[in-house]
């Protein structure tokens, strides 16, 4: 992944469930990765997307779904990977996520190790760039 960030790499966590946001933020803090928490995609889109190395977003959210957020981020920052997570990991959502160019499709309950591995992989790629 050829991407550099001027400041410490930050992961955007977008989920309407506060428990998910705080838990993932705690997980990332345990590997010294800062995160920014957003209740909805609209809040994220108001930010400077260049400071993020990854967007980790729920799919089923009110106002702006994860799929719609992915489409908008692809238009604004095509190189910013967006990993989608959902509690309804059926084939339809998986296919839609793949068609829209999602970086990963994660099923809830999340595999914390898989999330860590994904982020460490991105960080390793960013370091190599």
């Amino acid at each position, binding site marked *: 992944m050829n991407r550099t960030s001027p400041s410490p790499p930050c992961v955007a966590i977008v989920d309407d*469930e506060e428990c998910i946001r*705080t*838990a993932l933020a*705690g997980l990332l803090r*345990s590997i010294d990765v800062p995160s920014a928490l957003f209740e909805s995609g609209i809040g994220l889109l108001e930010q400077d997307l260049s400071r993020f190395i990854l967007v980790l977003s729920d799919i089923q959210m009110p106002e702006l779904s994860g799929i719609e957020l992915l489409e908008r981020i692809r238009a604004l920052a095509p190189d910013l990977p967006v990993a989608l997570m959902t509690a309804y990991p059926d084939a339809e959502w998986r296919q839609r996520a793949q068609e829209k160019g999602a970086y990963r499709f994660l099923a*809830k309950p999340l595999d914390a190790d898989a999330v*860590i591995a994904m982020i460490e992989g991105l960080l390793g790629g960013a370091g190599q760039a």
Partner: protein
Amino acid sequence: MVTPFTDRTRVSLAALTAAAVFVIDTFTRLQSAVAVLYALVLLIADDGTSRSHPSHLASYWACPCAALAVISFLISHGGRADTDEMLRLVASLAAITIAALLLARNRRLREQVRASDVRYETIFNSLALAIWEHDFTEVMAELNALKASGIDDLEAHLRANPAQVAHLCSLVRITHANDAAMRLLGMTGRSAFFERLSDFLPEEDQSFLAGLLALDRGSPTFEIECQVRTAGGDLIPIFIAMRLPTDGSGYDRVCGSVLDLTERKRMEKSLESARQERDEALHRAIIGGLSTSISHEVSQPLSSINAYLAAARRWLDRRPPDVAEARRVIAQAEHAGDDAAQVIAQVHDVVEQGRLKRSLVLFDPLVRRAAETIQSRHPAASFAVTAEAGSGRILGEVHLLERLVSSLICNVSNASPRPHEETAIGIATSVDGSYLRLKIACNSAAGPVRTTATDRRPAHLSAGGLALCRAIAQFHAGSIRVTGGGAGNGIEIELELPRA
């Protein structure tokens, strides 16, 4: 007049009478209109039936009798009859004529009655409705005797003496029954129909007592569902309707119109069975639909637990291990576990409620009921309900919706930074196009949730409590939005549900 003689005897008697009258009139010197006695001949000749054989017709005999009267007159008086004798002849002929006319009229009337009887029997037997006729004369006599013996409360007396009721039932005679009644009770011929009501009313029957009381009260009608026993011994459900005498007479001919309810009862049973199957299927469908939402809500705290425990492991894997951080995230994992347990407990409560089924639920009354219930538990709290959804309704499961609204109110109340006695909860419903909205606010909302890079667990809201609320809202194609929650501020919850 129906004579008791055979046709031959009657004709012979009529002829002899005519001969006797002729002899007396011709060969005796009686100064009377003996020929008037020819009217007797007509009366004897008319057999009182409607048969039209000439020998049965009075007119067939009138002409010969009149001729005999004239012949007798001519023989007796020749051409020398005086006025009195002429008048006696005229009177005799008039009597014969009048008798003939009266008998012919009677015959016509009898014919009409016979035709009417035939028509009645035809209608009676061609009806698809079963009808049988009761004779309650003996029953009424015994009831009157009971009351005359000093019994004021007939109903209480009869209820206390079932043997007497059974005896009264045995006094009811069945005097007539149509073909439909025969078929209903499996009879093969009219002569074989039950003679007494007690012959086909089951011993455990309670309807006869009701009928006795209706007779005693002088009710004009009596209708009841009961069972009767067929000739084959089968019990069949029927509906019987009677018009009862109210003027003290006619108890010997009380008709009962009877409807066979067998088919209706069978269909009712099938319908009830189908209804139970439908309710069961609907219940399973609701639980199934809800379970999808619930599994989504349960997966949230489980995801949190996974993340916290993974973080704890990493804090402990550090060299040196950061035990304080590990303890902190483990504590947060415990809270998340509590949330998951809370969701599961609430789901258990919902499922335990029994049958779930959808119906049209008026939104405003639902919200008011929930607020009143919570108010009763927290009398010091202040609830201001503004119900503006009008006749807005939701197609949903009423128990789930009640739990949803109650939980949301409780969540807002519990999230208040102030104690209950200082908390003012505003509850407002409204209609927004095709949606119904419920806003529950505690103080004023402080705006959208501030984004934060912290992993501290928020203090206000119970994720477990809202999880089931979200599941129920989603099940009803609705959504929940929570705003506020900043330090020192209350929160606002908005529920949106599609309008039915």
